[in-house]
């Protein structure tokens, strides 16, 4: 595919990501933000693809969109009566929030564009890296991998324990 379309598509997805993230943050409707978060995740996944991490992109979609987002929606539904949509959630610290938003972003961009501490070295990842991930996982990162699996287990148990209703309460 040509360089130009490549660039255009990148910008498209970048715009989707940023705009949806902004919508997530700035909308007052929890449901809306939840849904726009979906788009953000998609955008990010797409960017992963651009970053030649297709496997991760898939994982992103599966885990985030399939798991986390659903969880969030459940949470929303648990905590807010679904019958009245369009219910708002108030904000605090709006002013320092904005200051910091602009400030952080400003400083970071300034940093990125002024400091050229990290010039991309010639070697870049090319093509799919699935088998390399597998290789790495089983070689270098086997211990973290196990740790993470245990963590997941613990987290699931803990989440289940925390979230369950006990009879006495109702």
């Amino acid at each position, binding site marked *: 595919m040509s360089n130009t379309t490549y660039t255009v598509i990148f910008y498209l997805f970048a715009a989707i990501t940023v705009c949806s993230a902004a919508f997530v943050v700035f909308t007052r409707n929890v449901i809306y933000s939840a849904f726009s978060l979906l788009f953000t995740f998609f955008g990010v996944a797409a960017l992963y693809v651009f970053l030649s991490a297709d496997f991760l992109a898939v994982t992103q979609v599966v885990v985030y969109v399939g798991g986390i987002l659903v969880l969030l929606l459940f949470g929303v539904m648990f905590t807010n009566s679904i019958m009245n949509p369009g219910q708002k959630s108030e904000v605090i*610290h709006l002013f320092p*929030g904005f200051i*910091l938003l602009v400030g952080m972003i400003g400083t970071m961009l*300034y940093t990125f564009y002024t400091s050229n501490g990290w010039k991309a070295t010639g070697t870049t990842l090319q093509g799919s890296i699935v088998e390399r991930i597998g290789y790495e996982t089983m070689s270098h990162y086997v211990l973290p991998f196990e740790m993470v699996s245990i963590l997941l287990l613990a987290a699931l148990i803990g989440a289940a324990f925390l979230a369950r209703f006990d009879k006495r309460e109702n």
Partner: protein
Amino acid sequence: MHSLIQLSIVVLLLPLLSFVILIFFNRRLPRRGDFVGVGILGTAFGISAYIFWQVIVQSYDPAFRVAWDFTWINLGNVPGVGPLQIRMGVVIDNLTSIMLAMVTLISLLVHLYSTGYMAGDKNYGRYFAFLGIFTFSMLGIVLSDNLFSIYIFWELVGLSSYLLIGFFFEKESAADAQKKAFLANRVGDIGMWLGILILYSQFHTFSFAEIYAKLAAGEFGLSNAWLTAAGILLFMGCVGKSAQFPLHIWLPDAMEGPTPVSALIHAATMVAAGVYFVARIFVLLTPDALHVIAFIGASTAFMAATIAITQNDIKRVLAYSTVSQLGYMVLGLGVGAYSAALFHLVTHAFFKACLFLGSGAIIHAMHHEQDMRWMGGLRKNMPWTFATFTLATLALAGLPLTSGFLSKDAILAGAIGFAQVEGGGIYYLIPVLGFFSAMLTAFYMGRQIWLVFFGESRTHLKPAETHHAAHHAHDSHDSHTDLHHAEHQVHEVSWNMRAPLVILAALSVFFVYSPDPLDGGKGWFMKMIPTPATVVGQANPQKGSLIAAATATQLAGAVPEAVVGHAAAGELPNAASSHGQATSAHTYSDLRQAEIVHAGHAAHYTAIYISSVMVLLGIGLALVVYVFNIIDPEKTALAIRPLYLFSLNKWYWDEIYQATFIKGSMVLATTLSWFDTHIVDGMVNGVATLVRKFAFFNDSFDRHVVDGAVNFTAFTVNTIGAMLRKLQTGKVQTYIVMLILAVFGYFVFYFTRLIY
């Protein structure tokens, strides 16, 4: 120690013993212990009479002198001076023995007299105690052999005179009088003390003998002016004590004391002590000092006489006559008639004591009436008193055949001689004043005799209110306040008051002193008390001796005889060789003195004539005025009213002193104490206030600035804390905000560092 010394010490201490006994135990003794005083004085008189007999009568030696002294204060080995001691001691010579006898005798008589006069007084015992301490101090003056002890006893007689003048202290007048007497004496004593100091500072000793020896050896380090000053200053002691002008004011007031006291202290002995003292220091008086003394004496004699003629209080007349007679003595000393002056001292002591005691008898009989205007006609009621009083009056007036005539005449003769020697001029003023005073004396004594004893009783003429005032004045201390309402029955006094009068009157007759009723120089006294040799004559040539050198012709006669010194011990010298007699005692170291004595004897008869005439004149005047009433005193008084008032008010001396010294010192005192409390203390307080002000300022500074800073810190911390507390909301997001703020801040900081 010489036996006479021992006796004299006994004599000295006996009256002290009587004082101690009486002051402590008089209330426990019968009759308040007056017999103790009388008895002790009798013993003392006996002993001193024995001394007199020993020294004068039995074996007379012109140079007789026994002394004994002991170390009173030992100052150790003083750097620059060497061993230094202040010694006390007694000395007995002819003069001393005579004075001893005289003092003890009069004191004894006064004691005896007082048993009658003071009978029934509520402080009867204390009175005798005071008499005792007075006699002790007076004997001390007589006996002491050095200036220091004389000064000590000098003050002590002042004390006893103070106590006795104020004996009736309930009377304000008495209290004033005693204070006045003591202070006036103190003023005199200052001078005397300074004179003593001048001598001591040169010789480091107080003893007469050593001082004279060193003076004669010319060891006096200072100029002659200092020596003259010393003489005059020492004489000031006499001025105070003997009531000489200008310190005479206290003596008349001293008559507030009981009359016997006036007789003893203020007529016979204490006031004469001044003269005695001058006689003691006579040899160191320079001619200049002598001139001053002579003039003061003459003026005193004259002034007192003029005052006496107008006084109405019987005792005041006598007091002023005393002052006047003391003036005579001082005059005599001043003109160099040494022996004459002392002679007059003795004779005057007796007849003036007699006069005072007589007046005391009168006052006693008149129930404390002292104003002569309300007396009169007493000669019938009080014959004894009349006789003795008159005799003593004649002696005082100086009529021949009396003792007073001998002595006064000798003094006046000396004055004439002095005037001649000193070259006349102003110096003739002295004999002139003397003779004039003699006339005045005769006049006022005649006046007194007449007013008191002759004519009719004028008691009823007395204005009532003054009458009662008089009662009030004395009934506080007077025991017999019975007869005041009725007319006074005046009667002769009892024996114990009569005897002294008789004795004293007997001692006022000429033959006691001299076989020749006209010449005291032939008497034993003036022979035995010759003029001592001055110790300053050659050391400082003065005018007198220059003149003496000029008139060498006279001396050509005098001096060789002196050198030959035909000691005419036994044979009575006659007037022709009187100077020989005078010089026979010893050779004069000063020509001037020899000359004065010589001239004095030469002038003897002139003096007799003049004085006799003067005295007769005075008495005649008195007769003319008061007996034959040719001149009416009241009219005369009116005619010369200013003069009369001047004399009546005692030349306004009291007023002058009141206005100048007393008021002055009081004003000074009040001013100074104002200055003290307001200026000096004010400064102190001012400083204190300033410090306080500063302290307050400092305090406020402390409170507002220093302490304020502390409080401010606390406040700031507090507020900041309160502000920060707001941040601790417990809201996680707030914390996050802060966290991120921090991070952001770090970023900013970091990047700004990156830029540069």
